[in-house]
């Protein structure tokens, strides 16, 4: 449980593509924090006022927003509060959250806004039990989500490196607590090397944030197949079938994208590749290579074939030559014919009968589960990664300036704490256990 004096932030509207999304922030410093990343000064803003401007992370503008100011005690929580209404994109919401965190807020615990409202006498005592139940059920759901994400492998590398850092921490503690005895000492150059490794790993993770990337860039989708397979027809059919708005979110237009298809709030970016939209006889070798490179980079590869023109053996051969991608769908066009034993879905692009493909795309979209909790957990991970990096840099600076081992140990503990937020917990007892198991101590 974290402190109730801190300023908390969370999305207040369900996540997904929508017209408007609201981020809510509450706490003593809510107005100051908002002020630090808003285009206009809010320090003198009265309660119950609405302000138009931009949310900025330093010089970078994130979005045009409407911002409401509430001054304590006249807010839902009874504390100073800010509500930011932005465009309804998961990416924007997550960027706004990250920026507010950078300037001093933290992600709210489940039910924390309501809890604060209760503690500040905004809710009456009769509601206490209901509040408690809600906190319980929300955090259960949150826990499930977090566990699922962890299993996704996000934290596995970190976890291993963290274990190595614990071993170093144990060595430093050993030096500190048993320095009078015949014990080995922590090798500072090894520690430096490990910390650098951790830092570069964290850097990679920060930049290749899986879900973050999906928010930002969507799912790279390549439709591949022989020239006469009906790719263009399928593309057109997909665009026609699109069930959500296409928005021009910043960042989605950097690459050459043919079309953006949004299903359940997830963008599928149908990427233009040589050969994909051109006729077969003009393909040159260089174009084929480019297509192959695009396919290899794809998150989703849709392999389309004409069931009438391909024998099962040919199909088998073609599929075996496809690159590894995160998702792959084998789609039989002109579907009334058989394709042997290969697992596939059948459509008829020409007649617009592509429901089975759409439902597959929905299934993929669902795996990202862009609920509130996903965004929150992702921002939470980003927060932990950033703080871990800061603490690890402190360790390096400390080693460089030759500080004493009590302080080195403190910096390492900080780093372990934040790394622990990403992948499990570490307590002092773990450190002591590590010492007792590995070293012979005791006069």
């Amino acid at each position: 449980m974290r402190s109730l004096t801190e300023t908390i932030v969370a999305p207040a509207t369900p996540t997904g593509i929508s017209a408007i999304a609201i981020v809510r922030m509450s706490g003593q410093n809510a107005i100051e924090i908002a002020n630090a990343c808003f285009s206009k000064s809010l320090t003198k803003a009265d309660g119950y006022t609405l302000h138009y401007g931009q949310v900025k992370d330093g010089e970078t503008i994130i979005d045009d927003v409407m911002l409401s100011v509430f001054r304590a005690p006249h807010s839902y929580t009874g504390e100073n509060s800010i509500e930011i209404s932005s465009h309804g994109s998961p990416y924007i919401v997550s960027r706004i959250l990250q920026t507010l965190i950078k300037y001093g807020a933290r992600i709210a615990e489940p039910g924390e806004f309501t809890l604060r409202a209760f503690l500040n006498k905004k809710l009456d005592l009769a509601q206490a039990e209901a509040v408690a139940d809600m906190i319980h059920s929300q955090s259960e759901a949150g826990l499930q989500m977090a566990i699922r994400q962890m299993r996704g492998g996000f934290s596995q590398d970190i976890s291993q490196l963290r274990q190595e850092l614990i071993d170093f921490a144990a060595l430093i503690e050993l030096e500190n607590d048993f320095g009078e005895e015949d014990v080995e000492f922590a090798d500072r150059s090894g520690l430096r090397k490990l910390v650098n490794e951790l830092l570069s790993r964290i850097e990679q993770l920060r930049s290749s944030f899986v879900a973050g990337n999906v928010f930002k860039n969507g799912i790279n989708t390549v439709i591949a197949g022989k020239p006469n397979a009906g790719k263009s027809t399928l593309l057109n059919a997909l665009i026609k079938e699109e069930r959500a708005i296409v928005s021009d979110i910043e960042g989605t237009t950097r690459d050459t994208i043919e079309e953006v298809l949004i299903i359940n709030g997830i963008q599928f970016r149908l990427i233009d590749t040589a050969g994909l939209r051109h006729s077969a006889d003009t393909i040159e070798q260089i174009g084929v290579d480019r297509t192959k490179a695009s396919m290899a980079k794809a998150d989703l590869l849709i392999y389309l074939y004409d069931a009438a023109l391909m024998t099962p053996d040919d199909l088998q051969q073609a599929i075996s030559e496809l690159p590894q991608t995160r998702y792959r769908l084998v789609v039989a066009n002109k579907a009334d014919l058989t394709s042997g034993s290969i697992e596939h879905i059948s459509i008829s692009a020409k007649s617009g009968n592509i429901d089975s493909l759409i439902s597959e795309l929905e299934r993929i979209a669902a795996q990202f589960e862009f609920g509130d909790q996903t965004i929150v957990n992702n921002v939470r991970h980003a927060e932990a990664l950033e703080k871990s990096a800061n603490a690890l840099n402190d360790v390096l600076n400390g080693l460089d300036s030759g500080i004493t081992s009590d302080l080195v140990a403190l910096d390492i503990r900080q780093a372990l704490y934040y790394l622990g937020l990403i992948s499990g917990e570490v307590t002092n007892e773990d450190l002591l256990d590590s010492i007792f198991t590995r070293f012979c101590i005791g006069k």
Partner: protein
Amino acid sequence: MKYDVIVVGAGHSGCEAALSSAKLGCTVLLITSNLETIAKMSCNPAIGGVAKGQIVREIDALGGEMGIITDRSSVQFRMLNRSKGAAMWSPRAQSDRHEYSSIWRQTLEQHPNIHLFQDTVNNIVLNKDDVCGVVTQLGFNFQCQTLILTNGTFLNGLVHIGLNNFSGGRISEHKVTGITEKLVELGFTTDRMKTGTPPRVDGRSLDYSLMEEQKGDDLPSTFSFYKPQPLEKQLSCFITYTNTTVHDILREGFEQSPMFNGNITGIGPRYCPSIEDKINRFAERSRHQIFVEPEGWNTIETYINGFSTSLPIDIQERALREIPGFKTARMFRPGYAIEYDYFHPTQLYHTLETKIINNLFLAGQINGTTGYEEAAAQGLIAGINAALKVKNTEPFILDRSDAYIGVLIDDLVTKGTEEPYRMFTSRAEYRILLRQDNADERLTPLGHKIGLASDERLNNLNKKQQNISSILNILNNTSVEPSVINPLLEQANTSTITEKTKLSKLILRPQLKIDDILNSSIGYNLKEFETTELEESEILLKYEGYIQKEKEVAEKLKNLKHIKIPSDFEYNKVNSLSSEAREKLNLIKPINIGQATQISGVSASDISVLLVYFGR
């Protein structure tokens, strides 16, 4: 007559308990089975050490006695961990075992509120859920308002040497029965623990020329903040090592080892293992360090630190003689192991009063700890709280960010312990705040407020703090020219400066010590201050950022500690709590939300639920 406080046991815990209650104005009866063994050091003749030394400083700062008596009976003083940074500095003294004991007895005898009586308590008397007296072996009934049990290793104590075992609280001393049985009958849970001690030998039979001498500090400091009187002369310790021949002989005795054949069931400390445990668990090591420690000014008896064992005596003797310097060693007393009853400390409040029986306090090894310092600290806290209970005033509880004593007691009552609990600096999350140099600043005002620390102690503290701020002023307001300071910087192996710089800025460099400045021409106006004041000023400057960081974290948690939970709260009625949390909360019965956050199995959402109930 009815005593305000009865203390059972006169070890390190019982003595502090009796004296602190007496100082707070209570009438105290101290009952011990043997008045000749008051404050006896059952194991090594030393006080302090890493983390333990800090505890002694804290006991002293609060107005306890351990520091003063240690200073008066030391034969050697060392500040350990000098190179590890100020948070690690740890005072340690070798003591004159008999002197220590005898000064304690004099101190107790001199307090008018303390009555002493030699007898063995083997039952306690209750009035419903309140304790109201004790019954002794000789048939006496004593009445009291509060009772503090500090039975150490005596409850159903069982001594082991080889395959021999016999009852006893220490070797050659009777065990105590009746108390465990009574407490179990009242609903307390108990378990067995084990500890051990090495042989003592005749110092005249050792060849010290084959060992490495370890002298005391050239400029010894003291434990007590009160009228510190550093030692003028000191005795040395000596270091030697076991070898594979020693290990081979010890292994011959493994079959007859109560440790390995299952005779001993109690759990021993992993960090204070017997020599047989060390060679068994760390078979790859070809030697282990042995410290040869004098037992006092006027005795030839010598303590063999690092050689704790319960192997048969002939094996002990043969193995010893293979250690360099021990060829002709003559044993005074063999090493042995002892098993005893302890009570799970989760059955206690932070005041060390039991949750089941009112006005009954437990302190020391009976709570599963090891070490004189840990015992004394608990005795002090139990003594204070018993007295405060008698006076019907607010209990005295130290926070984890106040003192190692706070960490000790919070760990015990919140987490419990399965092996003998010893303090380590790594157990403290606010290590940078809990330094030996500032124990007086942290605790003397608190000790003074309850009437334990004298006015004089508080005045000394005020003077020290004024001097420190004068020193900081000087350092903040003195800028030095490069030509003046650069030679010094070069000497300290740190980069030189090119423009005038404040001393307070230069001192931030780990390489530059305040001593370097003091001993140079620019240090003339620092010479009037005490070394301890200069040292602490340097620490405050060098550690400022870290101190600030820890203070902020501590402050956050303290807010949750202000939210109290009634002790009779029924967690079972709160469906929103997880079932594990309900179980743990029912067991520990935290006194506030802050403590609840420390309990394993109680999650953040459980805490949120508790906040709903108690938050306003």
